[in-house]
């Protein structure tokens, strides 16, 4: 639940109104200016309508240097950020050959597999020499190696389902598989803050889409009851299939899904549950098995479990785990399996080795240490930020913590101030978040040491003071009070 000071809400709307007004003014003057100049594209239709990319041209381009910063090293706890400069007010940015070493608070490197690992990397290099970087074929033609078969078995065992199918790209897993599972005459009920890949997959499927209020099982039940009673639009026939799509950890809020309630509601109304664990697999739960393990939900109750390997496992690709019949059906019908190139073999090896490290099968307890460290780091960081007076979202144990900024001017101010102090943060604004709720999203990793976190806290506190984002009163320092009483005694 986001609590926003009323004055901040009003001033944020004012700022956006001003930015909008100036953007429109510039557009009109550009229109008048271009009246006098002739263009050689006479007779061609414009690529996009003038107002369709208004937001990109007039708001996003002004602060473009805060987004899309290129890096020139592996995304470890510290990363080399390439410096860029612009001669035309951020419309185009040019790279220089210099880079600065910054503390990395933006990569989804939850378990620290994003850089050299003593167990995984030698195995990956070996597999790179034996197989090559690409299989040069789709899975059904010639792109299935023994590593791919081993990977699917390994993932199915890890997640706790009978079988799994792996694709080469995480985004494509959602957008290619949802249309295969459900079509016209079906109903998809998705959480209002679901990721764009799910939205695209749902729109591409042709099914009717309804949205329920974020993480509110009561509203989900109301929507389900209403839709089942009404049936399909216009014909009012019963729905062919109903699927409820939720995520494990929502990447912009850091909130963990209320899975037990949602699963029980879906069982009552006989709807399928599709769980997207992109950010939660490998990062939460005692052995890293995701939100089902954390909340004690039996994996047999969740019909389709989807996840990606880009966050906790340091590789690329996505997977779907489910019953043997489901996976067999997907292997015959899913376009990502039939036509897209299969996942690169060294990446598959990286995932297998990472899972072995997490489960302790490589003979050491580094996996358990990593999981304990990320939980400790996240809880420590979140508690410290909240003590300083920042508004931090997300549940306990979640490694994603957004710090609320709200005003559009604070987005580039916070980002640039942190970069000046060699801390790289990711800031997100409209349209990825609602208009009012711009935020800086911090992702904690198991490879951050305590000194790294303390340095990050210092820099964020200073940037927070300069930009004025400590919306809550800071907690009083209890230690000084206790010291005072001891001295008197």
């Amino acid at each position, binding site marked *: *639940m986001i*609590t926003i000071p*009323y004055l901040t809400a*009003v001033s*944020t709307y004012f700022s956006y109104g001003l930015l909008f007004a100036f953007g429109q003014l510039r557009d009109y003057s550009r229109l008048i200016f271009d009246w006098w100049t002739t263009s050689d594209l006479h007779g061609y239709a414009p690529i*996009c309508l003038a107002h*369709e*990319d208004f937001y990109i041209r007039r708001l996003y381009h002004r602060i473009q240097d805060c987004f899309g910063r290129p890096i020139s090293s592996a995304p470890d706890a510290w990363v080399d950020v390439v410096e860029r400069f612009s001669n035309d007010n951020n419309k185009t940015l040019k790279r220089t050959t210099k880079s600065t070493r910054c503390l990395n608070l933006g990569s989804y490197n939850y378990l620290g597999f994003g850089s050299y690992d003593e167990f995984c990397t030698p195995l990956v290099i070996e597999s790179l020499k034996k197989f090559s970087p690409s299989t040069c074929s789709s899975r059904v033609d010639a792109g299935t190696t023994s590593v791919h078969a081993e990977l699917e078995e390994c993932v199915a065992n890890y997640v706790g389902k009978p079988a799994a199918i792996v694709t080469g790209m995480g985004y494509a897993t959602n957008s290619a598989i949802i249309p295969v599972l459900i079509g016209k005459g079906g109903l998809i009920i998705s959480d209002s803050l679901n990721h764009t890949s799910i939205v695209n997959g749902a729109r591409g499927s042709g099914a009717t889409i309804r949205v329920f*209020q974020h993480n509110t099982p009561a509203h989900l039940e109301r929507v389900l009851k209403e839709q089942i009673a009404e049936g399909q639009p216009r014909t009012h026939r019963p729905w062919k299939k109903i699927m409820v799509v939720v995520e494990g950890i929502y990447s912009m809020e850091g909130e963990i899904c209320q899975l037990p309630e949602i699963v029980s509601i879906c069982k009552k109304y006989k709807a399928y549950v599709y769980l997207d664990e992109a950010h939660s697999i490998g990062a939460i739960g005692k052995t890293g098995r995701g939100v089902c393990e954390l909340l004690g939900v039996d994996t047999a109750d969740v019909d389709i479990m989807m996840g990606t390997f880009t966050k906790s496992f340091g590789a690329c690709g996505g997977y779907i785990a489910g019953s043997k019949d489901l996976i067999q059906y997907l292997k015959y019908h899913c376009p990502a399996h039939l036509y897209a190139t299969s996942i690169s073999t060294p990446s598959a090896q990286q995932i297998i080795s990472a899972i072995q490290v997490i489960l302790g099968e490589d003979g050491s307890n580094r996996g358990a240490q990593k999981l304990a460290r990320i939980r400790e780091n996240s809880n420590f960081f979140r508690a410290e930020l909240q003590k300083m007076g920042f508004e931090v979202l997300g549940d306990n144990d979640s490694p994603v913590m957004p710090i609320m900024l709200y005003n559009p001017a604070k987005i580039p101010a916070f980002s640039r101030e942190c970069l000046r102090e060699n801390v790289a943060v990711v800031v997100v604004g409209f349209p990825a978040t609602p208009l009012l709720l711009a935020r800086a999203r911090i992702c904690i990793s198991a490879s951050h040491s305590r000194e790294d976190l303390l340095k990050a806290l210092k820099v964020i506190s200073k940037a927070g003071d300069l930009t004025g984002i400590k919306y809550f009163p800071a907690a009083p320092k209890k230690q000084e009070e206790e010291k005072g009483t001891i001295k008197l005694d």
Partner: protein
Amino acid sequence: MYVRALPTTDVNRNTEWFTYPGVWTTYILILFFSWLLVLSIFNCSPGMAWTTVHLVHFAVTYHLFHWKKGTPFGDDQGIYNRLTWWEQIDNGKQLTRNRKFLTLVPVVLYLIASHTTDYQNPMLFLNTLAVFIMVVAKFPHMHKVRIFGINADQ
């Protein structure tokens, strides 16, 4: 003073910002400050300033709410390209609180403008015409209606 920002179920990013707290207050404050601005720049009587604010408000909101169609984002894939902003808010549901508020604002502005100009003639005619067009455009019956094909699709 804090308020809670509950996440909405509106997927249209062009209109979902209107469902968060603080919008109504900002709207009213913008109108009030623009009245002060007009008074300080043109040095006219308060009634003329209110008339100016009312007519400029009519021009701006008619263009933004009832003329411009579609959304400023390309990745909506054009599903709202035939709908004006007024037809998009609250997912097309009529007579919601937001719509009632937005219908009331031009009427209140009209009453203030007419009262402070003492119902004298050129201003009264222009103000009445403006408020008539504004209120009729917001009727539930006018949802997706294009009179004489004005502003119909390309």
